[in-house]
């Protein structure tokens, strides 16, 4: 099995950077394109427009720093990282991008929520493993 287009999920957490190390390694081994996606989730059912604006600005700041670090990590291994920032629901948006761009591997970090949270809300990892139309590597 060879991977030609790899997508990595970047949320700024240490888990996602750990996953990036694996993604960079795989991209090198298979000479594959490496992309990273960050999804800004705006609050659902907001009471004010300001709430949405602030959330978006906060996410922009976080992702700008995370992408700079990610790009540097990839460059050090001789890989050119293509970054995408999209707005929307994390799982839905990542799945749509995979379908639209034809990625054949998704690499994500494990997000450690509490058991109760995962039971009630369902985790992003679970959602992606279930719905992604390609192979998924979850790095723990």
């Amino acid at each position, binding site marked *: 099995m060879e991977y030609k287009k790899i997508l990595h999920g970047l949320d700024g957490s240490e888990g996602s950077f750990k996953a990036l190390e694996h993604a960079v390694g795989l991209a090198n081994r298979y000479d594959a394109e490496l992309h990273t996606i*960050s999804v800004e*989730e*705006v*609050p*659902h*059912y*907001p*009471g*004010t*427009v*300001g*709430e*949405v604006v*602030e959330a*978006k600005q906060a996410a922009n700041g976080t*992702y*700008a720093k995370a*992408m*700079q670090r990610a790009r540097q990590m990839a460059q050090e291994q001789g890989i050119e990282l*293509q*970054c*995408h*920032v*999209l*707005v*929307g*629901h994390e799982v839905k*948006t990542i799945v*749509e*991008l995979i379908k*639209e761009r034809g990625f054949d591997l998704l690499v994500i970090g494990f997000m450690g*929520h509490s058991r109760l*949270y995962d039971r009630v*809300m369902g985790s992003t990892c679970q959602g992606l493993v279930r719905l992604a139309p390609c192979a998924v590597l979850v790095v723990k």
Partner: protein
Amino acid sequence: MSESPWLLAALWVGLALLASMISIRTAISVALIEILVGAVAGNLIPWVGTLIGMPAKLEPTPWINFLAGFGSILLTFLAGAEIEPDALKKHWKPALVIGFVSFLIPFLGAMAAAYWLLRWSMAASMIAGIALSTTSVAVVYAVMVETGLNTQDIGKLILACCFVMDLGTVLALGVGFANYNGWLVLFLGVSAALMPFAPNLTRHFLHHYEGQVSEPEIKLMLFMLFILGGLAAKANSEAVLPAYILGLVVAGELRHHKETVYHIRVAVFALLTPFYFLKAGALIQGSAIAQGALVILLLLLVKVAAKVLGVYPMAKFFRMDNRISMYTTLLMSTGLTFGTISAMFGLSRNLIDSSQYSTLVVVVIASAVVPTLIAQKWFQPQHELSEETANGV
């Protein structure tokens, strides 16, 4: 409850903190979570108090009422100030028509349903009509941002329509229940005199004082809001009316001063709106919801059906295709902040009772969630993935 204001403040701020944490974890708006936390605490605290033999209530005191009222005024001001004047100018004709009709038909529909089907009083029915005619600009805006439509013409048109609808709501609250006396004349006179000068005055203050630690430009806006709000209250009108209009009037100036808007938002979200939304929730009676489930369902259906009747034909008239027409209609069926403001206005003036208030607020919350889900699931317009390529970041 303890009589110490600090302990009481700690309880309310503690609930606000809990709501913030839940909101961050779930990505659901803090406003909605605050209402829900307020509702749970408002119903749970008396029950627990009875259980342990210590009667207690999450009852708003006069100072909590003041902070909540102040919060609603500033929320309304910010709602007005968030408009894009250029978009409104560009789309003023369809925005005015769609916005007005989609306010009027749900207003009349919900009022008629409350009056004839539920046998509410005329005043209570009017409050129901106003509360259920609202559209949440914020909910619409969030969906627009998610779909990338906020940067397209159709998105700007929908948002402009929502602003017109909100204007209808504040006008109805401000004019519908006012006393037609000398105070009203004075209020209208001072408003008419102040509004034309407000943009220049604001521009002058922003130009000379923005960045000063004492924030004179924000104090100027508060001063104008309090003067107009105070006169409106004297006329038994509603302070949110001048607040919204003042927001609209100075929106063009504030657009270039994001730092000042940010400072206002910080103060509002951290200090004032938690009291407003928690109070809105705390006044909901759990028992009234259980007993009035069918009424809630009926009013929700009336709201959505009336919006379909009001908005859909207008959207078609302005040559939107079926999918976008239905999408627009459903988004305009959403409500939240202005709906709760209307319901609380009715409760505070004894135009509706606690049970009617609970019913209306639950319908308003349901209308923020249900139409959005349907719109996104079945009617979301096809669009290119709205990508903000980050390669230059």
